[in-house]
């Protein structure tokens, strides 16, 4: 009973939202030819009575101002997986600079977990299978360029830099489970040219897990070096 009433509401609302949209289509189609027809004749008359100019109209084509607000890059470093040793991590990132102060970032990383000390001491007991030791994460983050600046190399060279803070959400696939992950960290960016950035980042990936029996909050720290290009 409850569901059939819901379906009725569903259909009514569907009709209510679609029908006005359809009406708009037909209205636009009708309106266009009408105005074209009524505007044409007077313009023709006016043109005939005036001497036709020999000058061709110059068409001004504005070159597009190229925006380079996006960054794409790769990174590699070390990820310490709590209870499961530290291992190499590598990943890719895509960032969009909203303003000179803020940016958005999507990143995808991969690592592999080692063995817990329990597994090492007991000798044979395996907590995770081989494929469950693969560690993959994605993160959607927002960043703030807290301390922009310049560094000076010698007398004649200076490079633009920024110290930034990042935080975001995402998911981690580890131990046969997907885990909601919050990340936070900081980084330092240096630009050897206008369109290349070298990053050094430190991130903490935090999630809840009951992998080792009892539910607990896990902090996985990552330090990585990255290279990005602006486009």
């Amino acid at each position, binding site marked *: 009973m409850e569901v059939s009433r819901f379906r009725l509401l569903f259909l009514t609302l569907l009709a209510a939202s679609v029908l006005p*949209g359809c009406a708009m289509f037909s209205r636009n189609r009708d309106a266009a030819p009408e105005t074209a027809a009524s505007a044409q004749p007077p313009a023709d008359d006016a043109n005939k009575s005036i001497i036709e100019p020999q000058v061709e109209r110059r068409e001004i084509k504005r070159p597009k*101002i190229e925006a380079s607000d996006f960054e794409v890059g790769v990174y590699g470093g070390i990820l310490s997986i709590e209870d499961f040793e530290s291992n190499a991590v590598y990943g890719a990132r895509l960032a969009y600079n909203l303003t000179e102060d803020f940016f958005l970032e999507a990143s995808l990383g991969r690592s592999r977990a080692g063995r817990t000390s329990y597994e090492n001491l007991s000798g044979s007991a395996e907590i995770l299978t081989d494929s469950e030791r693969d560690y993959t994460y994605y993160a959607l983050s927002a960043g703030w360029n807290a301390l922009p*600046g310049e560094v000076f190399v010698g007398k004649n060279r200076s490079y633009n830099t920024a110290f930034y803070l990042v935080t975001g959400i995402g998911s981690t696939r580890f131990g046969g489970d997907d885990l909601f992950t919050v990340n936070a960290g900081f980084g330092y960016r240096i630009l050897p040219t206008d369109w290349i950035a070298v990053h050094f980042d430190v991130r903490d990936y935090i999630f809840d897990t009951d992998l080792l029996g009892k539910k607990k909050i896990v902090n996985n720290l990552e330090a990585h070096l990255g290279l990005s290009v602006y486009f």
Partner: protein
Amino acid sequence: MRRPSSLWLLLIVVLAASAQAEEKLQKILIADPFIELHTGPGRGYPVFYVIERGQEVTIVKRRTDWFQVRTDRDIEGWVAREQMLATLEPTGAPLDLQEPSRENYLSRRWQAGVMAGDFGGASLISMFGGYAFSDNLSIELTVNHMLGDISNGYSATLGLMHLFVPEWRLSPYFTIGTGVIYIDPKSTLVKASDRTDQIGYVGGGLQFYLTRRFMLRSEYRHNIVFTSRDDNEEVDEWKYLGFAFFF
């Protein structure tokens, strides 16, 4: 090992593309008494050069609200957007910065965004993309990733979204649609099996035009999961905050 190599390929393509883009550049005339060239695209970077009124410069590129310009002596620096607004094109008309504004928001067609929230007690990460038929009505594809204590899941839904007052900065909207949901219960539970079901939803939300091409969104959806059991399942979905842009 396949992923890193394809990434490097992407990197090379991007490098090649940025190297090629040097051909047609916009020239402008300075109309203010002078404009200031900063060493970097930010308010704190020092001014190292000044260009006087009447001189011509070339716009190389733009980054956020800063424009990299080049003088005829090949000096390159960054100029703030406020100063660029006072410059002229070679035709004498004020410079058109070619940036999206409120008018473009009304005539937008494609849009996409990310939202975060709660799906029946599980954490929710949601991504959406849409196409607008008219100012009011658009079709949207939403992909959800649910991460809970008992189960994880994905869902993909296609629906209609009706923005009630598109000309307002903050407008309510109504949405309705259907799709599929995949639920994967955690392995620690007994007798649980993963399943795919159809899902239908009705909901509403608020869309706020932020600036340039950006929008904020907040949304509620009432979902019905059409299970193969005797009873259907009803799930409340709250997307507290989302960020979207149009293009």
